[in-house]
Each structure stands twice: as C-alpha cells, then as structure tokens.
C-alpha cells in the first residue's frame, strides 16, 4: 500500500509541493479534490519536498486534499481495442466506450538506437503537387505544418491522412478547438477511416497541463503498433500549445527562460517527441505530421524555430497554399531519385525560375518597365501558382511533372530554363521548341 499524504505545502501555478518519502522522479500521483481525481507527475525532488505538475490544473485544490503516490510513471493501455476509440488527453474515454485498463505500457520511453535505424525509402503519395513533386513526403518522416491560425491546416492534415496508404492513424489533439475535433471525426468517418483511427484529444477547454501528455501517449501507442508491423501516421495539432504548456510549467518552477519566456530545454523536449518517428527494420513505422501555428506569423519565434531544427523539413502553409519557399522535405532526395529521371531537375529548375518570378513581381510593383524576360517570368509564375500550387489540385506525381514541362514550354525557350540538354531532348513537349510557340 502506497503512502497517502494529506498536506499540500505549496500551490503555485499548476504545481503543488508536498512533503513525502520514498518518491521517485517521474512517478505519478493521484490528487483527490472535491471535483474528482487528478493525475500529477513528480517533476522535482528536493530532500523531503516533492514538486508535482497537476494535469487537471490546480484550480480548487485545497491544502488538505489527498495526494496518493502510485509507484509508477504514466501508463496507457495498448491493445487492438484502441482502434476506432476516442480518448481525452490523459487517456480517459471521450466516447461512451469502456475504460481500457489492461496491458499498460509506459509513455515517454527510451529512444531508438541510431545504429538500428534504416534509411527511409518509401514515398507517401498525397496527390498534392507541392508535396509530391517539390517536397515529397516519406514514410517515417517527421514534418510540421507551419501556419498562421486561420489557415486550413487541419483540412490539409485530414486530407493527407485519408489519401496516405497507412494502416493506422493516431490523432493527437492538443488544445484542439471542439469544432476541429468534430471536423476530424466526421471527415475520417466519411472517408471510411474511423475504424483505423485512434483519437487522443485534448481540447481548448481542457486543463492546459494535460496537453503535455498528448504527444507522449500518442507516440507510445504508435510505437507499439509500429513494432507490430503497422505503418502508423501520427497527426499532432497543435504543437504550439504543447510548447506553451511547457513554458507555463517552466515559469512556475522559476527556471531561467532562454528566449521569450521559453525554457532552455525546449529543443530537447520537442526532439524527444519528434525523434519517435522511425522505420523499424523488418517491421512497421511511425510518420509524424504536426501542426505548428506560428505566433505572429513569425518563423523565428522559438517554437517554429526549434521545431524546424528538429524536424525533417516543414510545409509552410500560407494563403491556403503550400509555399515553395520555406517549405522543405529533407528526405525528398531519398525517394525522388526513384520516381522519374526528370523529377529532381524539374523540381529545382522550376523553383529557381519561380524565385526569379518573385523578384520580377517586386520590380513590377515598383513600377519598372518589364523586359521581354520579365514578361516571360510573369507568365510562368501565374501559371505555376494556378496549375501546381493551388491546394485544390489533386493529380498523381507523373501528371504533375508533365504539367510542369507544359508550363515551361509555354513560357520559355529550352536554354532559358537552365535544365540540362539531355533532359530537354527527352521531355520538352513536342512542337514547342521555344520561341516560335
């Protein structure tokens, strides 16, 4: 029988301090309040003083509330019964199904030995040219969607989830708006994917600290399924809320902030989660797509900044389009060498021209006369945005590549494209030898 303590020494922010013995770092406790039970985790030990972060928040906690240490860290059930179920951020049923208590696993486990990792090799096709052609998504990749609030990031996530060939989808909602939660549920249901989805949803109305659990729970479950040969896609939305919860706890614990109030270990904390993305040799995989809304549309804000240093690229969502600049799939070169021989060169060539188009736009805005070359670029840029960038476009990679050549041939002579002669000879659309077009 574990000891029960009836005196809370200090309450500050969402952290309580009790005097206790025999407590371990990271251990879980249950706090019994008038409003019910709340889970709390040990985050500091100082002689007999034990600091705990309270997942349900400290509002209404009284100094004589009961704290019972459970003797183990946070655990979650792992079983096939999870499929199709909806839980809260701390793993309690949010649907009307039964609570699952068997086969408990620890969350936040150790990282994969780098020597056991393999080089990712499978492309995940999405039908979105800005992804498939320009920044291919790869199985086991960890990739955030950088966006300002108001952009259709959840729609993008849901669309990729439905289109991707995966065995299991885990949706980790972190401070998710209730409407958005319903949107995911309905969309996945309509798409016939509900039975292969597990929801861990912490909504905007739930206590802030509980947000901290969602990535760990989602990824711990994902890991177990991946080890059972499942290709798992984990969607986390929105990781900015996770980082803000970290910040809140850090400030309560009086940690010296490093950058705009965020703790110095923000990078390590985020990395511990994102690095769970993996392809287990001879078994399943975890791919992570995570929304990171950028406070003030500022990519240098500590949250997107630290995230970008950790993840394998990012999709930059702006004006309902995936921007070619700023967006990056660091793993693309692992898969785009095996698609079609013109894929890489066309991708680079078109982006370089698009960069020139942007410069020309600036010149135009300043009222300069447009040269013949400028006009070509303007034509190209508009076609590019219309035919390839719009999120409504849904075509296979090969069609998108063909379309790319069409657009180039409609605007430029072959040598203006900066592409190598052998590719031009092979792929330049017939009857369009450039200028006479």
């Amino acid at each position: 029988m574990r000891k029960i303590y009836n005196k809370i020494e200090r309450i500050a922010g969402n952290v309580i301090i009790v005097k206790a013995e025999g407590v371990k770092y990271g251990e879980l406790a249950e706090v019994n309040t008038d409003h019910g039970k709340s889970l709390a985790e040990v985050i500091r030990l100082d002689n007999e003083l034990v600091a705990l972060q309270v997942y349900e928040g400290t509002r209404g906690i009284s100094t004589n509330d009961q704290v019972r240490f459970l003797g183990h860290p946070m655990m979650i059930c792992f079983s096939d019964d999870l499929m199709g179920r909806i839980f809260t951020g701390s793993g309690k049923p949010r649907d009307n199904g039964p609570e699952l208590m068997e086969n408990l696993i620890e969350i936040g486990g150790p990282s994969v030995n780098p020597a056991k990792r393999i080089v990712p090799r499978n492309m995940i096709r999405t039908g979105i040219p800005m992804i498939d052609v320009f920044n291919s998504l790869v199985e086991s990749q960890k990739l955030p969607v950088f966006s300002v609030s108001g952009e259709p990031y959840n729609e993008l996530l849901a669309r990729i989830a439905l289109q991707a060939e995966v065995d299991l989808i885990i949706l980790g909602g972190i401070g998710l708006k209730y409407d958005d939660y319903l949107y995911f549920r309905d969309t996945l249901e309509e798409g016939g994917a509900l039975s292969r989805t597990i929801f861990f949803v912490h909504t905007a109305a739930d206590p802030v600290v509980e947000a901290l659990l969602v990535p760990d729970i989602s990824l711990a479950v994902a890991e177990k399924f991946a080890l059972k040969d499942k290709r798992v896609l984990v969607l986390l939305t929105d990781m900015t809320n996770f980082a803000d919860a970290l910040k809140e706890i850090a400030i309560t614990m009086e940690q010296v902030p490093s950058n705009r109030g965020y703790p110095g270990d923000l990078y390590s904390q985020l990395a511990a989660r994102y690095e769970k993305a993996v392809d287990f040799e001879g078994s399943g995989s975890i791919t992570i797509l995570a929304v990171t809304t950028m406070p003030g549309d500022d990519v240098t804000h500590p949250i997107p900044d630290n995230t970008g240093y950790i993840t394998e690229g990012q999709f930059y969502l702006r004006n309902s389009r995936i921007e070619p600049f700023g967006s990056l799939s660091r793993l693309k070169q692992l898969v785009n060498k095996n698609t079609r021989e013109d894929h890489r060169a066309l991708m680079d060539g078109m982006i370089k021209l698009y960069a020139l188009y942007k410069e020309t736009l600036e010149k135009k805005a300043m009222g300069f006369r447009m040269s013949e070359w400028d006009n070509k670029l303007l034509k190209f840029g508009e076609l590019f945005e219309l035919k390839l960038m719009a999120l409504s476009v849904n075509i296979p990679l090969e069609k998108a590549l063909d379309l790319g050549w069409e657009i180039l041939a409609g605007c430029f002579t072959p040598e203006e494209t900066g592409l190598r002669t052998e590719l031009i000879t092979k792929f330049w659309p017939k009857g369009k030898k450039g200028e006479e077009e």
Partner: protein
Amino acid sequence: MTNANGKIVGVNGNMLIVEYQGNVKMNEVGYVILGKKRLKSEVIRIRGNLAEMQVFEMSRGIGIGDNVDFTNELLAVELGPGLIGQIFDGLQNPLPEVARQCGFFLERGVYLTPLPETLRWDFTPLVKEGDTVERGDTLGTVPECIFTHKIMVPFNFYGNFKVKSIADAGNYSSKDTITELEDENGKIYPVCMVFEWPVKRPIDIYEKRLKPTEHLSTKVRIIDTLVPVARGGTYCIPGPFGAGKTVLQQITSRYAEVDIVIIAACGERAGEVVETLREFPELIDPRTGKTLMERTIIVCNTSSMPVAAREASVYTAVTMAEYYRQMELNVLLLADSTSRWAQAMREMSGRLEEIPGEEAFPAYLESVIANFYERAGMVQFKNGGLGSVTIGGTVSPAGGNFEEPVTQGTLKVVGAFHGLSRERSDARRYPAIHPLDSWSKYPGAVGAKKTTYARQFLFRGNEIDQMMKVVGEEGTSLEDYSIYLKSEFLDYVYLQQNAFDPVDASTSATRQRYVFDVLLRILVARFTIKDKTDARTYFNQLRQKFLDWNGAEWESDSFKNIENELNAMIASRQVESERDLQVIFDKTFE
C-alpha cells in the same frame, strides 16, 4: 585511498544533488545505483558536502536516498587500435554492440567496452628492453585499416620509464600486456595496447604547434576557391535550419582530403547519421581503394539521446581526433551542431541556477567554445613529423540570427566563416554559403589574386543588382548589365554545386584550378553584345554549356568535347584576340 560514496538528496531533471562522504573531485564519474542498474554521472559542481552531478541517462525512477558510488576517475575514453570504423554514443559506447544486446531501443545503464579484448592485432615492437621512454613514445605498431597505428606509452605516464620487457612481434589481444615499464622509483607497470585519457584534457604531447598554412581540399568549389580551410585550422558553418549545414558536412566527410574523419553528430537528427552509417561501408574512397568507413569514426549523440552525454560527445570526438594526430595523420573533426552542445551546457547551467548570460547561456560559454576549438592545430612532434586536427563546426543560431552568443563566441576563435544564407537556400543556390559575407584566413586552391578578383567581381555584380532594384534594368548601362550577368554566371556555374550529382558533388583542386581559369577568362574578356536581351540569351547559352561541362567526368571525352564547344562559343563573341586576352589575363593574375 578509498572512493567516496553518497546519497541523493535532490533530483531536478538530469541534475542530481548528492550528499557525499570522503573526497570527490571535479568531473569525477560516479554511478547512481538504481536496482540492478548503474547510471553513469559526472560531478559538475561541489559545494560543501554536496556534489552536483549530471546524469548521462534519463532520470526517471531516481529517488531521494538512492546510493551513488564515486570512481575517483575523470570522464575518460579508451584510446587504442580499433576505433576506426566504429559508431559510438557520446560516452564512447559502441552503438551497434548495444543494439545486439538490447535491440531497437537504447537501455539505461548499459556501458560496453569500446575496444574489447576480442580485438586482435599484429604487433611489431619498435623498442627493446632497457630503452628509456616517456609518454607518447612509440612502443611498436599494428596495422589498422590503411594506417600504421602507433602503440604509444600511455599519455598519463608522466616521467621517464625503462622498458623492462617488450612483446615479440606477433598477434595479441588489445588487452594483452605487450610491455612492462619501470618508473624512476622502480615500480613496474604492465601496459597493453589500450589506455584511457580524460576527454576534457587536451593531448599536448608535441614539440610545437604550427600555423595552419596548408590548404585542405574539401572538393567544394566555393569553399576551396573563395573561403578555404587549412589543415589544423578551424571553421564554422552557421545557418538557419534547412540552409544546408548538414549536407555540407556530409559531402565534406566524404570527399575532404584528410586521413581520418571524425563525425560528431551532436544533438541533431538521428536520421542524418543513419545515411552516413549505412552508406559509408558501401562507398569506396578512390584515394585508398577502401570503403569510406575505414577512415571514419562516428560519435553519435542525437537530439533525443541524453543531454548530458551530448555535452560530453564533442570532447569524446576531439580526444580521439587528437589521439590519431599523434600518429602523424591529418584528422578532420566535423561537429554538427555545436549549438546543441552549447544548449546542453545551458540546460545544466539553468539547473545549477548559475547567473545566466545572454539568452540564458552560461557566462563561461565563450571560453568553453574557445577552449574546444583550440584543440585543433597542426603540430610537430619531436621526430619532426607533422599531424593535424582540423575542426569544422556547424552553428544553429536561434531564428537564423547570427547576433547570438554561440555564433558570436565561435566567430571570435575560428579561422574561416562559412555563413549560410536563407535567401540563397530559398533560391536553391546550394551550397548556400554567402560568398560576400563569409571569410577565411587560410590559403585557397586557386591563389589569392584570382580569389580576390572573383570576389570583387561578385561584389560589383551585387552592387549593380542592388542598383537595378532601384533604377530598373532600363536605367542600367549595357556594360554594368554585362558585369551583373557575368557575376551571376560565376555564381551559377561555379559557386553553386549539386551535392547529389555524382560528378558535380566533388571537384578536385586540379579541376578547380583548370575550370576557374576558363571562367576567369570569361570574366576578363569583353564580348560583342547587341543589347540586354542579347546579353542574357548569350549568357544563358554559356551557362547551359558550362553546367553540362560540370556534369562531365574530369578529362573524359565528353569533358573535352564540351570544353571545345564552350571555347567556340566564347571565341564567337570575344572582342579581344586570343593573344591580347592572354596578355591581359597574365597581367591581372601573374
């Protein structure tokens, strides 16, 4: 003296407060006893009877009152034959062996011998009984990969020693005694091929340190030609995420002309190391005919691995680099990213509640960075031989802003700065090293005059570009416009280099010199040009040809054919005669 022991009285993340009995020393290693596991930790501050320690593992499950055994040893690595080709974590734990024992996941408290006794070597003695030796002297050699590995008197054997016995030539285990050394007091020490050395203490066994003046060919054109690196020198690569730091280090680790490359994957993505780890054993190094793995050591403490071990990892790497330098080899240490190492210090400093400096980094950040880079150097040994450690570190500045403590602290101490720019990487101008902002104090592949000329050309081109943004193309003279096009041309066909093209990925110094001369002639020459559109078209055609040339194997038929075509294209528009141009060229660069 017996070792100290203690009990835990505080846990704050990976920082433990331990009440100890006996004597402890700074940076001493202790083990937290957690059931059957022993978790390695290091003393980082001592206050009265309290030792503050960083634990090199996750601290979950550690409680008040848990025991700590101190070892009286500093954090050290094993040095000896067999390091090459291995993959270690930040504490020199061999990761493939850990994987064999523990499977997919890392397990706390598993520490395996980096150089196990199962390694056997063909030893040839070089000393005889009665010889007098001192630390660092060669006792014999063993062949390791393509190197002659010197078995040396352990570096912690201070004073003079007499060789009491020495093994005959033959095959021995790395832990067999191969010699017995007698100190001045007559005490005899058995010595094997492996010994330990504390990672935070530089290996200083050489006659003198030389100025780094010898060009180190990285095969990256923009580096070798514009902002070169020297053997024994230091350089840094700061840049925002996605600008190309890691790719640059990866290609350098493949193609750089050095004997040994040590890759310190410090606190960044595990996936990036995996590419190296899987590909190097397959890739043949054309210079040696052996796989790249046979000249590489990987120290891999990636972002989700314990933070304290990340802090140690760069020291583990540089200590091994210094060790191989003692064998008169040129070693290149690539650390990606030094910012993660600095952040590891910041995390710990925060837990120690030290007074924070800028952006909460500890006040001693700069001196620690300086001390680390100071471990690079070209040195001369007492036999006259030379060896070098070159250090190249990436920096990951918050928000991509170079005005931050790690970048600034690093810039003060390195000899070359390869600043990556977001504009260039966005425009896919790889490698995205900014050609004007970056600098180097070292000699390059093509000679100072030519480098300066190219730089000035780029500078002028950039000026014109900026001006054109104000006055427009129509307000720019044809002459200026041509200069602008030429500088763009130089950038496009020479400074940019495709890391993923088998030929373009690496350009030898010889090829650089050859190609750069052709390029310089284009810069120097005047061309008959009608108007701006004509100029643009012409340079587009030249560019196309040059890019094809970049893709052609050095001295192949296709290389020569394209070169002829290129020359014809140049000749068709050239104003000066070939002879006049040669005179101008010689006068400019003589």
